[in-house]
């Protein structure tokens, strides 16, 4: 198998696993459908915005939960934002943690919130490293003169 085919195989296997393991959901497929020759970088641009936004959100969440008197409305607003952005790019596991996180906010359960913060940070880093790897694979395929296979 030549280099391009190998890379393409790798890419397909990796992508399939991301969906199977729930890191990504159908919304990510929708994003890819919106990418074309006139906007060849669309997915990577949106995902980059998501990464930037998420780092800020996570910092703000840490700060908010470290206050003596936790402002649950503020925490909830931040989690709501995170839930929205992760949902918009198809980061399913991150989104799911946000759902639980909001429940703990409603209950004003500070321990539950802390646990969720750790969990959401963890899930965020997992999906980020996987998406970084995915984009890297894409670049390798393109650099080798191949085209990136699409998952319908």
């Amino acid at each position, binding site marked *: 198998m030549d280099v391009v085919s190998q890379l393409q195989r790798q890419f397909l296997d990796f992508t399939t696993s991301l969906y199977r393991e729930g890191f990504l959901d159908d919304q990510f497929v929708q994003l890819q459908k919106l990418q074309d*020759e006139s906007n060849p970088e669309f997915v990577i641009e*949106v995902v980059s915005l998501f990464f930037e*936004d998420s780092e800020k959100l996570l910092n703000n969440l840490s700060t908010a939960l470290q206050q003596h008197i936790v402002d649950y409305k503020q925490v909830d607003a931040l989690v709501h934002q995170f*839930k929205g952005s992760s949902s*918009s790019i198809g980061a399913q596991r991150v989104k799911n943690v946000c759902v639980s996180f909001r429940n703990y906010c409603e209950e004003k359960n500070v321990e539950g919130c802390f646990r969720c913060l750790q969990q959401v940070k963890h899930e965020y880093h997992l999906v980020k490293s996987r998406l970084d790897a995915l984009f890297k694979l894409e670049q390798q395929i393109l650099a080798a003169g191949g085209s990136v296979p699409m998952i319908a």
Partner: protein
Amino acid sequence: MAISTESEFHVLAVDDSIIDRKLIERLLKTSSYQVTTVDSGSKALQFLGFHEDEESNQNRPSVSPMIHREVQVNLIITDYCMPGMTGYDLLKKIKESSSLRNIPVVIMSSENVPSRINRCLEEGAEEFFLKPVRLSDVNKLKPHMMKAKAKDHQEPAKQGPEGSETPEIQSVQPQQTPAQSSNKRKAMEEGISQERTRPRYSGLAVI
């Protein structure tokens, strides 16, 4: 930049999330609409040339009347949950305005709350989309814009050079042509974009 002589619809998208703005912009441009995105309800009203009768919030009052005449917005799509002015507040302001009330408004929300949906529809929203918004949702927009244009054509319309689409209500057609870039225009957007549309028959009911 090639200027298309086809009639095009101009959609104003309002969302405080930069990710969602990028997404909705792409969805709308894929459907061949001109797009302006803003990050708040107040900026949306500013862009629309909205004037409060009491205190004016306009920073550049001398420019506003000009913007009002040139800018043509055929539909407003707005997020519901925004800090400050919510999408619902924006909807109300638009429907209360004699100059803006004929512009169709669509609400987007990540939360499926029936009472919220009903309230928006009762206030005059044409559609309520659950996020994440998809191409199939955006395909529902055209009939509303066509209808609004038809309503505004009480007098004979000034047609564009190619005698573009007649203002009749068409059934929803699939707009997905992701491979086509020839008739797409790159709309400027960054915060408030001063998108200048060509002067032609107005989609806004200016009173």
